[in-house]
């Protein structure tokens, strides 16, 4: 299937120039529309820039790329059956990438300046553009941004050249890969959302928590987003794409008797808001969330443990997604650990080496839209650099074959493989499989056997890991997750963790543990996997979610940390929800 696609592309690649008589341009969809004011403004300013933007004694830019990101978000929050936030925001931002020099050495990356120090990527937050299709109003901003970018590029370029003169780098890979230009035009999308319907739905879902006095705080958040992107550059890339994304999340906080609190989230996603699950389905899962949380709050406290842990596919999804994001992506030359706040990338220069257990194979396929009839989220046809998405085998039987790359050169990988996320190599839809693999029953037996071998009385099964904006409910957790990221380790909060007796296989729910793993080591510690792969949704920030396809896995050596001794005191007064309705003063 993949091969077919490539052939198709190659054909077009040969055909188009023949027909048009222009430089090789590969067109996926040709929908010429001259009415797109964004494109016209970008193109006109680009051609003027190429022809005339030049400072005396300095080079003209060799590369000019404009990207416009338009976002239209409708956002709702509700608690206890009442709406607390309701807003719509629309914005358009321009991201200019202008480079002086050439592909080998250019003005990108900052180098020794402050941005280099903090290891920033391409680094700007963009420039606000008018949201209306007004040609001159858009061009005015494009003009100013280009002028700024050119002046900065010249400064950086000179600074970088002189820095390299005194600190020569051997075997430099270059700064920017050459790619075949691609024209890919899809219609832009519009946000259409039934505001009344979703207000009713969030109200109704948030009111479900009222039935449970154990729930101390809860919130239901709904967001529907339409995102459109335009990209052009002077190499001939031209790209327009539109995407819808709808997410609803319900989170609740329950307090155990000892004062410790537990939060968990259920979330639902679809492209268009019309394709969301029915309210009944969501109600059922939200109800399940509360019941689960209550069970957790009544469970005994987890204890410190280091040893084998089995992750069900639902738990393996966030675990492997977080691990792979930090290992098989972003390993470009600039991720060298030379900057102050960046540790060395774990898989840099590891292509061809064994990085995972022999049984594991990991494929990344941005084009995948379903898995055995189940919908997958996060797919794309063209990446953020305008490069066509490619299916790649990252790890084959434990050996690292390639890395997710963007146009930033990566050692061992030939150019971009269509995995740019904001200009940096990023994972998309990951498919993890294992050979050999065993069924669920045998897997649990393996876990117990491993435990016995190592002399443990208990082993653990994680069935669910907290994801989604933790900060919605808990700022402290958000801060600690940032800290663990800085240290290069990964801290995960299982919301369903079972202690399994090695003598009789009995499972008992425990609460409050966190799991600490080292992404660089975890893949090698996988000692067995299930034979059933499942698509699992992984939250990406607040407005987004993507799929990963994973089996259940056993990780040989996992650190489970016991809950902190600290507990906040429960509220002094009972909740107004739990007391019989006091008659309001007459």
């Amino acid at each position, binding site marked *: 299937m993949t091969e077919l696609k490539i052939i198709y592309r190659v054909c077009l690649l040969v055909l188009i120039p023949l027909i048009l008589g222009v430089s090789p341009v590969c067109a996926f969809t040709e929908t010429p529309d001259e009415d797109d004011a964004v494109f016209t403004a970008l193109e006109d300013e680009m051609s003027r820039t190429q022809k005339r933007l030049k400072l005396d004694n300095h080079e003209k830019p060799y590369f000019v790329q404009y990207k416009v990101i338009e976002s239209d978000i409708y956002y709702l929050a509700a608690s206890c059956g009442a709406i*607390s936030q309701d807003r719509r925001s629309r914005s358009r931002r321009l991201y200019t990438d202008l480079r002086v020099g050439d592909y080998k050495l250019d003005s990108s990356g900052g180098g020794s300046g402050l941005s280099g120090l903090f290891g920033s990527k391409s680094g700007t937050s963009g420039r606000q553009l008018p949201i209306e299709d007004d040609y001159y109003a858009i061009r005015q901003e494009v003009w100013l941004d280009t002028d700024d970018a050119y002046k900065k590029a010249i400064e950086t370029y000179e600074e970088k050249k002189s820095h390299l003169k005194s600190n020569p780098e051997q075997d430099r890979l270059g700064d920017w890969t050459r790619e075949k230009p691609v024209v890919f035009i899809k219609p832009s999308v519009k946000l259409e959302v039934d505001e009344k319907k979703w207000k009713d739905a969030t109200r109704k879902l948030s009111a479900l928590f009222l039935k449970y006095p154990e729930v101390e705080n809860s919130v239901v958040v709904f967001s529907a987003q339409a995102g459109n992107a335009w990209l052009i550059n002077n190499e001939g890339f031209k790209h327009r794409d539109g995407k819808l994304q709808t997410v609803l999340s319900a989170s609740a906080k329950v307090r155990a008797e000892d004062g410790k609190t537990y939060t968990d989230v259920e979330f639902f996603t679809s492209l268009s808001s019309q394709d969301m699950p029915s309210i009944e389905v969501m109600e059922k899962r939200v109800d399940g969330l509360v019941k689960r949380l209550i069970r957790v709050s009544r469970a005994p406290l987890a204890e410190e443990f280091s040893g084998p842990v089995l992750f069900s596919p639902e738990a393996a999804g966030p675990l492997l997604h977080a691990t792979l994001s930090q290992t098989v992506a972003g390993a470009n030359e600039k991720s060298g650990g030379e900057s102050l706040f960046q540790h060395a990338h774990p898989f840099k220069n590891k292509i061809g080496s064994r990085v995972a257990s022999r049984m594991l194979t990991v494929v990344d396929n941005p084009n995948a839209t379903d898995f055995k009839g189940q919908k997958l989220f996060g797919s794309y046809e063209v990446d953020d650099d305008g490069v066509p998405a490619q299916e790649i085998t990252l790890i084959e039987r434990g050996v690292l074959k390639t890395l997710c790359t963007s146009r930033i050169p990566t050692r061992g990988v030939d150019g971009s493989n269509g995995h740019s996320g904001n200009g940096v190599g990023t994972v998309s839809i990951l498919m993890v499989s294992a050979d050999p693999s065993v069924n669920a029953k045998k897997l649990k037996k393996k876990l117990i056997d491993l435990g016995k071998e190592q002399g443990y009385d208990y082993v653990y099964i994680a069935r669910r890991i907290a994801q989604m904006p933790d900060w919605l409910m808990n700022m402290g957790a958000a801060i600690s997750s940032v800290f663990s990221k800085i240290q290069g380790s990964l801290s995960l909060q299982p919301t369903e963790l079972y202690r399994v007796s090695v003598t009789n296989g009995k499972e008992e729910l425990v609460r409050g543990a966190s799991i600490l793993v080292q992404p660089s080591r975890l893949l090698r510690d996988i000692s067995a996997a299930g034979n059933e792969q499942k698509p699992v949704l992984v939250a990406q920030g607040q407005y987004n979610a993507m799929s990963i396809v994973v089996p259940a896995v056993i990780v040989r050596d996992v650190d489970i940390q016991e809950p902190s001794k600290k507990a906040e005191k429960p509220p002094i007064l009972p909740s107004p929800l739990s007391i019989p309705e006091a008659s309001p003063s007459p």
Partner: protein
Amino acid sequence: MKLAVFRACLAFLVLTTTFPLPVRAEESPVMRSLKTELDRSFARLKKAGDAPLYYLGYRLYDTTTYYISAEYGALTGEVEPVRRRTLNVDVRVGSHQMDNTHRSGNSGMFNVLDALSGQTQVYVPMEDNDLALRHALWLQTDRTFKRAQQQYSRVMASRDVNVTEEDKSNDFSREEPSRYFEPAKSISLNLDQWTRTTKNLSGIFRKYKDIYASSVVFTAKVTRRYLVNSEGTSIEDSRTDFRIYAMAQARAEDGMNLWLYDDIDATSLEELPDRDGLAELVKRTADNLDRLRTASVAQPYVGPAILRSRAAGVFFHEVFGHRMEGHRQKDEKEGRTFTKSVGQQVMSPFISVYDDPTQELMGDLHLNGTYKYDDEGVPAQRVTLVDKGVLKSFLMSRSPVEGFPKSNGHGRCAPSRDPVARMGNLIVESEKTVPYDQLRAMLIEEVKRQGKEYGLIFDDIAGGFTLTTTSAPQVYSLQPLVVTRVFADGRPDELVRGVKIVGTPLTALEKIICTSDKTDTFNGVCGAESGMVPVSASSPSLLVGTLEVELKDKRQDKPPLLPPPLFDGDGSDDEHTTGPEADEKGSK
């Protein structure tokens, strides 16, 4: 429900914001929920901690904001009203004399961590759902109460280790409770028309080749305020604010970054100029900036100057008004310029200054800093700050300072902040006035007397900032937007660019020589530690003996290399030369 009405209205031309009318007179459902939870909490939390709870207050602000922004004739953001409710819970434990809010000097790292860890966001419902609202109040009250207990123990510990403070006044004043209810205000706004107007106004800048960044913003805001506390205060009132703002930026040939803005603030739509008037404002901003671009660069200067019209009010607001804010007299980190000056001559004997939030009009202009009750529920009062040059009093919130144990109704804040003493309508009066022409003649005389080549006239001042803390020098720095040189030898006046006013406040105030006979008012908003609050400043034009001016730091960037797209090549305007000379002719 209400919001659904909102959105539906958007489709029509006229949009009306309505709030549910109270079922019974003088109390809305929101107020009832607030009171129920306040009573329950106050009764049961009083003795629940180590330190007794002696004050509990809820402040709830329900704001609906319309924001229309445009540049170059096109919208830059979604035009849709945003409604938001902001809840503040004020908890005081200990006693009026010393409580948890006492400034203890060491507010270190632990406070920040305390504030962050375990923090759960509280969602305040914007629907009138009693249980949902009380649930939010309950969570917020509990958290604030616990934090107050921690703060209090820190205050006590700090009292034990630190030397006694100079000012031993109480932490909280005793005041009579206030009860006030006014019907909800609504905004009747033709949103389509205002969208068009804002876009058209921003399009005016398109005609100016050298103004490269610009924007016009229109905002309309209605705020319903609910104040309730354990002393029995219950206030429910509304406020509407309208603002139109034009900003433009250009760069002089030498790379100096120049910008100008102008804005009009009003409390009702009728007070805003009509469309022609607004276009006039935008054009004036654009023309002034265009002239400024080619004006000569100012030189550092010390000498006589006139602060003209609105610039005089802004000058007083920044240089004097902020130093009159009561809490600054107590805070040992503050410079306390005037703390010990009560009863002393601090400026020219013909100058009196007062702040009067109860005054609604200056001439026929509505003042922006008018209110009946401050954000602590204390009735607004006229305060004489300076009488015939002698310092009389400070602006007071419920945080007493030595000699001033009571609030005078100036505890103000933006939603989500805590109130501190702030200005309302600052008014400068003079008993030594002359017509403006004469004042100008006096400036030239003074220039000659001091043996200077020229004097300066400041026509407009952009906010600026004033540093009142001890860690910074007691100086102010104001950014004058339009400054003119007036020569002693009768040469024509000359516009200059790139200056800022610096110096120490006392000297500038002592040296007011004379004032004009006409008072001008600046309506606007003022930002300080308690957020943005609406204010006004009124003053006659001031002739001062000495004002110090220094050069603004200038950025070294070159102007854009290529001309603006609209003026490049086949543009309708036939200008091909991009030199400044050609342009200067065009604009004169």
